């Protein structure tokens, strides 16, 4: 049957971290939205470790908050341990990280969806897409109910032809205990979208009361938690909007009653067990074809590739307050279950540990992301958007960021408006999407601060300031919050200028700050500002020279970013272009000259030629290469 003759504006297939942000963003922008999930009870499930944030990812979560997403606030009110990483490395690379209560995290997000106006949630497995004239118009489900939508966002995570390996044992599914979306792959292939395989893995979970914590090193949370959401610009209408509907309150006051993680190490016995059983590992016996992430190696990989390292660090992380389940961070493996048992028991503190779930590796389909526009819309199928692991990424934060962007852009597409594109110099989300669509990826892509050339501009506290243009243009936040951010921007600028121009003993305040030696306390009016305004102002004053260097580089690049390449261009037919460049350009189909210049093998002369050609095309229609 057909569910309704009136199509939804946006249909989101999948309710992981990408799907949740996608449907919230679209419905909050006023689009009628449908979320289809195979299992309503696993909405926003953390399939791997029970943590949000960390290096670069923490900044991404703050950017998500700056763009009206839910991940930050959801982490704050369900977090059970908060730590600020890299405190000693400098403000720009400091990242918040939190352990979360997995179930609380899920439940609060599920509840958020239930209460969201314009959003409908329905449990059904999507079995295929419905196309009309090269565009997607809806999807089919396992219930034989068809849903029609003006746009469709696919956020299938590891579920597309998901195959799990525990040693030689194989089970179809995207996550232990869940199903595999098998027929959807065929539908994507039919539409001309290329698919490839990736692999990822997860460690065993054990029972907390079977762990001997004595002798293990404790890792506590920070006494002063660094939160993800910008609470200073939130008002009552923003803070706990779910709870404020009068429904039952979920979550808790951020940073209260923190719990600890514990550290332990592998032993020579662990290494012996792994080495003797390497041939039984799914990864090492050739069972797995997909490419795994280098930054998240299995324990097999660690022992084999770094043979000189005597032991490997493991973290025992609690999965929640109302469960005794622990996650063994660092022990990802695809060894058979009996070997896993021996391996776990060879580790100090885990001699008598009881396994609740085995470790496993999972292989899944992904669609190489160079097949998308930076809006995350498919180049092959109009109105089809892709977000999350299906684009070859890894991580809840990377997925959520893409979901948010896809949701915003699907809603804008329905309204006939141009997409929101976050630039590389504006935030990690910009770097993430630009890397994906211009360079693609061969392993599950994870964000690192070193991927961002303008890292110094991406201190986590500045996220809502640097993304204000987007949140304001697209009205992604409440009117009141936008006004508060605008006032914060003005305050930071006012105090920055004040410190730069006001004299104290031995120079301006700014000079003294940069020399780290103000002779007296800073002016009282400045010290009376909020800690967020003070921190951002001091950052900009102290790092002025470096930030200016970044701004200059950005200025240089801006001109080429603004020059759009007409989609009708035929790179192979352009006279003067080197063959190698023409082929690369044809393959990646950049949308502007900035993207074109970042494709490896395309040199400045090629960019010049494109620039001349585009100018010629503008001056008079019809020029070489433009059909």
């Amino acid at each position, binding site marked *: 049957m057909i569910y309704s003759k009136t199509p939804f504006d946006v249909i989101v297939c999948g309710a992981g971290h990408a799907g949740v942000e996608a449907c919230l963003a679209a419905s909050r922008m006023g689009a009628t939205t449908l979320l289809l999930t195979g299992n309503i009870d696993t909405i926003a499930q953390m399939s791997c470790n029970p943590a949000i944030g960390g290096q670069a990812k923490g900044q991404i979560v703050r950017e998500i908050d700056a763009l009206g997403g839910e991940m930050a606030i959801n982490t704050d009110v369900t977090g059970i341990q908060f730590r600020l990483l890299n405190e000693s490395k400098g403000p720009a690379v400091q990242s918040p990280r939190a352990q979360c209560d997995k179930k609380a995290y899920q439940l609060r997000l599920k509840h958020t969806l239930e209460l969201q106006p314009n959003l409908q949630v329905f449990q059904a497995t999507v079995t295929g897409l419905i196309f009309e004239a090269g565009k997607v118009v809806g999807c089919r489900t396992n219930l034989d109910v068809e849903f029609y939508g003006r746009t469709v966002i696919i956020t299938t995570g590891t579920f597309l032809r998901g195959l799990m390996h525990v040693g030689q044992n194989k089970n179809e599914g995207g996550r232990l205990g869940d199903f595999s979306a098998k027929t959807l792959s065929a539908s994507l292939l039919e539409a001309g979208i290329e698919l490839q395989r990736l692999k990822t893995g997860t460690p065993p979970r054990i029972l907390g009361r079977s762990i001997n914590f004595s002798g293990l090193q404790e890792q506590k949370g920070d006494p002063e938690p660094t939160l993800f959401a910008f609470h200073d610009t939130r008002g009552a209408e923003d803070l706990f909007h779910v709870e404020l509907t009068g429904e039952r309150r979920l979550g808790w006051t951020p940073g209260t009653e923190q719990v600890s993680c514990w550290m332990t190490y592998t032993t020579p016995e662990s290494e012996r067990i792994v080495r003797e059983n390497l041939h039984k590992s799914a990864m090492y016996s050739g069972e797995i074809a997909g490419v795994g992430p280098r930054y998240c190696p299995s324990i097999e990989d660690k022992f084999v590739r770094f043979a000189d390292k005597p032991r490997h660090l493991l973290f025992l992380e609690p999965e929640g307050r109302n469960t005794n389940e622990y996650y063994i961070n660092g022990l990802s493996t695809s060894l058979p279950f009996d070997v896993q048992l021996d391996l776990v028991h060879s580790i100090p503190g885990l001699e008598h540990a009881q396994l609740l779930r085995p470790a496993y590796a999972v292989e899944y389909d992904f669609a190489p992301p160079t097949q998308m526009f930076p809006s995350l819309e498919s180049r092959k199928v109009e109105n089809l958007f892709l977000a999350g692991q299906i684009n070859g990424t890894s991580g809840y934060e990377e997925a959520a960021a893409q979901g948010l962007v896809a949701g915003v852009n699907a809603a804008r597409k329905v309204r006939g408006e141009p997409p929101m594109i976050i630039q590389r110099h504006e935030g990690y989300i910009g770097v993430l999407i630009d890397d994906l669509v211009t360079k693609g990826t061969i392993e599950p892509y994870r964000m690192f601060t070193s991927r961002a050339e303008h890292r110094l501009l991406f201190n986590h506290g500045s996220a809502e300031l640097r993304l204000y243009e987007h949140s304001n243009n697209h009205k992604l936040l409440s009117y009141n919050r936008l006004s508060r951010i605008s006032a914060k921007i003005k305050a930071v600028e006012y105090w920055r200028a004040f410190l730069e121009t006001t004299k104290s003993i031995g120079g301006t305040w700014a000079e003294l700050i940069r020399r780290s030696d103000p002779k007296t306390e800073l002016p009282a009016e400045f010290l009376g500002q909020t800690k967020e305004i003070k921190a951002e102002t001091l950052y900009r004053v102290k790092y002025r020279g470096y930030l200016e260097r970044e701004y200059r580089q950005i200025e240089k690049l801006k001109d080429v970013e603004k020059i759009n390449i007409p989609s009708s261009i035929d790179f192979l037919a352009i006279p003067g272009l080197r063959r190698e460049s023409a082929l690369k350009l044809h393959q990646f189909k950049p949308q502007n000259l900035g993207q074109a210049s970042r494709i490896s093998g395309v*040199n400045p002369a090629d960019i010049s030629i494109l620039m001349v050609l585009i100018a010629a095309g503008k001056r008079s229609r019809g020029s070489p290469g433009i059909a």
Partner: protein
Amino acid sequence: MSFSPDTIAALATPAGTSAIAVVRASGPQVAGLVSGIFAETPLPRMARHADYRDARGQLVDDVLFTFFAAPNSFTGEDTLEISCHGNPFIAQKILEDLLARGCRTAEAGEFSKRAFLNGRMDLSQAEAVMDLIHARSERALAAANQQLRGSLGRHMGLLISQLVNILAMVEAYIDFPDEDLPAEDRQSVLSELKELAAATKQLIATSHYGELLREGIKTVIFGEPNAGKSSLLNRLVGRERALVSAEPGTTRDYLEERILAGPHALRLIDTAGFNLAPTPLEQRGIEKTLEQAAEADLFLWVIDATRPLPGLPPAVAARLTTANTIAVFNKTDLPPAPRGALPQDFPVVTICALDGAGIEELQTMIARLADSFQVETGDELIAINVRHSHALVQAQQALESAGQKLSDKTDTELVASDLRCALEAFGEISGKVDNEKILDRLFATFCIGK
């Protein structure tokens, strides 16, 4: 299409010797350049005769310059054309000075591109411009590749690899704070950094090609006393006297002159004659000769044709090859002695330094040998090389700044910022280094991941 372009500069005439060379600059900074260099208010379309003084106030040449105000210029921007004497050395000095004053070397075909983008050319010329960019860039690329295959390329490869190593060591601790990495060792990073900065400095100093361009090809005239070395020098210099400036040698033991041979600038050094059984006084002069010979690019061995072939000091003989040495038999106006066999198959020319017979043939021969020192003489090539040394200096400064920060215990992210600046600068010479390279190195070095 809107632009906020920078100011570009390049040699507008072909490299090499000619009566006049033209250096051109275009962009918003040009009016400032006119007042900065010539202390004159720029008047459009007026050819002005003036002294060109570089940023340090030193006289480079007397020149004619013309300022064109936007949009009435070839590019449609403010443009400056400087006509100087057609000595590559002078043109090069002027170009370097323009870069020092904030200009950027023009990319291949960039003047034409700007002309087109600013509406100074019509559509029918667009394709011609594209072909031009293509052709020039291919040539520049070929030249650059040729160079990069040589010692500069090998050097750059090593430097970049070292820098990527250092960056990986620094970045690992930024991107993986929670990993079980070996304790951060700033001291060993610092010592590697110092090594790299020193290597970069050395490359700048010994950048041979740059030296050839800036200083001319070091050519040593040597031979026995009275073989006719000084007459030969005078003969070579005399023909070019109008174009050269005599520079006295820095010691009394040799004399240095600048001359042109074809398109090449030569530093011609007349040395004290060597004698295999010298008196103590002669000995000092010979030592100076050997010093000069050790650094020379080109050798003119002057042989008195009326005497038997003399032996060579071993230190000199070891430096001679058939590609860098010309055997000059002098005194052909006198009856020759039987000619002995040369130790190698050097090109031979017979001259009479007194009346100038054979000098032209010698000059042609010098030019031919000098040609083989330069991979190409296209204008882009010179630009590439100025760019090289510029980039290297930038890299070196960034490295030193990073080293300073490491010793000062400044935040790691700022150390990394300087190191990336250096990597960017290296990349300007041998192509952009992808961020992925750093990650590759990092993952290969450290056991990372949970």
